[in-house]
């Protein structure tokens, strides 16, 4: 410490002093305070029991604006998630059940947690999609590493990956179980029960498809 700051002396404390609680006999013996606390607990216990018995429970959606304590019996009862809740990922499908994904790696590029691994594959010679598209030979998401930011969904150019399953990240007991492969991701339906993509891109065979050669065949 140099001389200049030493000359200023100790720093003055600014603030309002808070009085310590009085150590009365009832506080020091603990017993009355314990009884008070248990009283509140029992009040809620009987209130909840009464509500459950008479079916007077608050609507879980409106509970925030209702009076009183609102309990739900998770997991039998669940709070409804908001419409744009980001749950576990799913891969959307085409009409023929193939993955909509074209393995462009935009999602894994956008992913800040680097939890998406994709190996791209090419459709074989003679397949109508050859040349137009490619597909993911492997599509793996490490749900343990995922931070559920939703960037992958934003980045996807073909509406192939979504987070609208409504499933929140499940607890498992080993790391391997968090590695979601393509088959599992494609098996999840959206909250509307559909597996299909909303991407209107023309599929081979449709009248809107440009065709594979100069004569639009």
């Amino acid at each position, binding site marked *: 410490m140099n001389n200049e700051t030493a000359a200023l002396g100790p720093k003055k404390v600014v603030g309002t002093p808070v009085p310590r609680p009085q150590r009365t006999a009832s506080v020091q013996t603990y017993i009355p305070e314990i009884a008070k606390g248990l009283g509140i607990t029992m009040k809620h216990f009987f209130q909840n029991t009464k509500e459950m018995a008479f079916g007077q429970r608050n609507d879980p959606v409106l509970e925030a604006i209702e009076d009183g304590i609102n309990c739900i019996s998770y997991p039998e009862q669940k709070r409804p998630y908001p419409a744009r809740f980001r749950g576990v990922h799913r891969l959307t499908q085409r009409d023929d059940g193939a993955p909509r994904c*074209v*393995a*462009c*790696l*935009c999602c894994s*590029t956008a992913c800040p947690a*680097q939890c998406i691994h994709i190996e*791209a*594959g*090419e459709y074989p*010679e003679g397949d109508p999609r*050859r*040349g*137009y*598209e*490619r597909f993911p030979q492997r599509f793996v998401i490490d749900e343990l590493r995922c931070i559920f930011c939703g960037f992958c969904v934003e980045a996807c*150019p*073909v509406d192939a990956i979504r987070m609208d399953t409504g499933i929140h990240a499940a607890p498992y007991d080993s790391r391997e179980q968090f590695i979601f492969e393509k088959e599992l991701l494609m098996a999840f339906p959206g909250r509307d029960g559909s597996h299909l993509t909303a991407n209107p891109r023309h599929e081979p065979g449709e009248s809107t498809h*440009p*065709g*594979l*050669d*100069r004569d*639009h065949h």
Partner: protein
Amino acid sequence: MPNFKLDDREIPFEPGETIIRAAQKAGIDIPHYCWHAGLSVAANCRMCLVEILPPPGRPAMLLDILAWDADKQEYLPQKKPKLVPSCQQAAADGMVVKSQTSEHVDVARAAVQELLLLNHPVDCPICDQAGECRLQDYWLEHQGTKKRMRDEPVHKPKAVVFGPTIVYDAERCILCTRCVRVSEELAKDPVLSVRERGNLGEIVVAPGRQLDHPYTLMTEYVCPVGALTSIDFRFKARVWFLRSTRTVCTGCATGCNSFSDFDPRNQKVYRYRPRENLAVNKFWMCDDGMLDHRRIHEGRVLEARIAGAAAAVPTALAKAAELLAKADPSSTAVVLSAEHSNEDNFALLSLAKAFGISDVYQSARPAGQGDDILRHPDKNPNTAGVAALGKASGLKTFVEFVEAIRGGKARTVIALGSATPTGGGAAALSDVKNLIAISTHEGPFVERASVVLPASSWAEADGTFVNAKGMSQESEKAVTPQGSSKPAFRLLAELAALAGKPFAWKKLAELRAAMAPAAPRSVPPESASLGAE
């Protein structure tokens, strides 16, 4: 040196040089698709148009045009200077060229860019060129408007297999004809040409032929868009995940300068790209060299072995040191390898010197095909380097090595390298009592070795290679050593230390300093790096 002025900057040029090349050498990239420094001028993309001001006192060459007047809501007659393609126009002393500073050039470039994208499928998500595509780059830089055409674009053939290495997508093609010119001028095999005109045009292979000359991957390399893709690299990786190091191709004695593009996340080399060096490979590499990156990951020896059984590297080193300590120097030999860098060979020579081993032989890969373009018949990257290093020790050939084995003069052998030259001899290796092989790849040495020490490949260590012209070139490390492998010079240093005669040097820089008198470095006059071309 004469100068011309480009956007208020003085650019020096060699007489006869074009504006775009002189600007490129000065570090200014005039936007272009069809021009390539190593090819003839086609001037068909019209992207490199610039405005050249008339000489003082002379009128400018002006064209009559109708320009839209937003205030009066009608087209009015106006004049516009005639623009010139800078790829074709030779620079002249005192010339004043306007590129970025000319509004006429801006308008022209935006129009060219819009035209090129009119029928483009915009399938960037599945295009391998995405991330290094000129259409993407120049769209951001120069295209002022969104596409205004509402019609269905023209459709053309997709995923046309041109040959064993190349797939073509006519919809993405902008018909710059770079690939046509590469086939004709570099490979001397005019197998590609353009069919149809205008927006129906496409590149075709000559009837009855395939695109199969030894330089097919250069057509993909020069393609400024995603029209030509290499089957080897197709769909394997996204270029923005890759990092590059400056390496030297080890496929033959030409020693082409290259970039190794690797993914740092999985430490895998995905491709080579030619690196411009006018003294060695100009702008090019051959297909064999471009595909040589596969050998970094294929057929490798990644674990140490003792008598054919896997072992830990320290155990194998201890075993090798024991064999070396017991060996009689008069019946011991070392085998240098033209596959390995100067550093590795120098380390082995140092070991020979330390243990009094006087018999120094050389192994190499078998010779192959060559041509007078780039490919050298000697398929080893460092034959000249090994010859220079081993000169003082009386370097002997592999044939003499086989004779020495038969004569019982090589009972203990420390061999660098994986391959043996053609003409037999590989079988003779079985007669070596104690063969210590320091190898990168499976091969005759590894098969017959008592102790195998896994060496890192050229991509996993810094190294110096001397090409057939006698130029010594440094190759940089790209990926980390695979498996339990280590650079051969490190294995040799550890072996020497275990056997009780440690080398004086510890680091690579010290090794290079020690090596300098034996292998003087002659760095080739590398031309200025002109960026990704």
